């Protein structure tokens, strides 16, 4: 009977180790908090332009020939780009610091696999949203961001800390609700990319890195 229990424990241990060893565990909660703060700053800076209090066209005289020129002439595009870069860089720094502390090299197979699995849904989403803007359906941009980002997280959660999956579900849910409140995009966007990131980052940090 005791041997039986021992074997069962061994098998459970084996299962845990197989799962844990195939995941990227250096992802830091502080990365989430930093990305969330960047998102809220981004939303605050773009608020007046999104709500139409200020014009987001940089040079009204410019002859907007191509789609790309149209994008470059838009303040919101540059705010979004800066927000995204800021979030990515700060998230990278904290995860890099954590991996250094753990003594695990950051660029292993696991990191590579995680990156691929985040990037595919995000890139597809990015192109999709680019076309949406082209057709003038601005109201769907914020829900689209949230849904595609959420799906990217759900997809990537198999290769990193499992809690990321639930963050993904919440982002998708928020995006879907936003589809029926299209004028409120910036609030939903700030709630998803800002508040949810900060709450989740704090939770993850508390659970894994507090000591």
């Amino acid at each position, binding site marked *: *009977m005791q*041997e*039986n229990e021992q*074997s*069962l424990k*061994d*098998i459970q*241990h*084996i*299962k845990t*180790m*197989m799962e*844990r*060893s*195939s995941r990227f*565990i250096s992802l830091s909660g502080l990365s989430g908090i930093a990305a969330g703060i960047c998102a809220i700053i981004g939303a605050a800076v773009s608020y007046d332009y999104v709500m139409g209090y200020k014009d987001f066209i940089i040079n009204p005289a410019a002859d907007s020939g191509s789609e790309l020129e149209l994008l470059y002439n838009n303040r919101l595009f540059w705010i979004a780009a800066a927000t995204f870069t800021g979030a990515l860089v700060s998230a990278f720094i904290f995860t890099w610091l954590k991996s250094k502390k*753990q*003594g*695990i*090299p950051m660029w*292993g*197979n696991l990191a590579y696999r995680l990156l691929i699995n985040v990037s595919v849904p995000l890139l597809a989403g990015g192109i999709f949203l680019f076309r949406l803007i082209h057709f003038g359906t601005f109201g769907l941009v914020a829900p689209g961001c949230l849904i595609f980002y959420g799906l990217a997280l759900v997809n990537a959660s198999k290769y990193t800390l499992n809690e990321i999956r639930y963050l993904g579900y919440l982002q998708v849910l928020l995006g879907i609700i936003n589809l029926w409140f299209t004028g409120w995009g910036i609030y939903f966007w700030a709630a998803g990319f800002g508040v949810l990131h900060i709450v989740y980052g704090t939770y993850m940090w508390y659970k894994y890195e507090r000591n």
Partner: protein
Amino acid sequence: MINPIENLNKVFDSRVRLGIMSALMVNDEVSFNELKVLLDITDGNLASHLKALEESGAIKVQKGFIGRKTNTTYMATKAGEKSFRAHLEALEKMIKGTK
């Protein structure tokens, strides 16, 4: 009836070694530091278990560099994978047998 305990491999008779083998079964290669974090044990403890597994032929070692730091990675050998699977089956049989 054959005693299933006979199929249990003495080499894997430790939590740490089971953990090492599990990690190597699902990854092509795992570094020393990754194993250390995964199993949450000291350098010396891990090294001695790795040595034992290496000597039994279950794993092989590859020494490399990341920048100037040494980076030692481990892989399961074909024989190691085979005997680990047999060990798993024996564990399963024991559970089923005593039910």
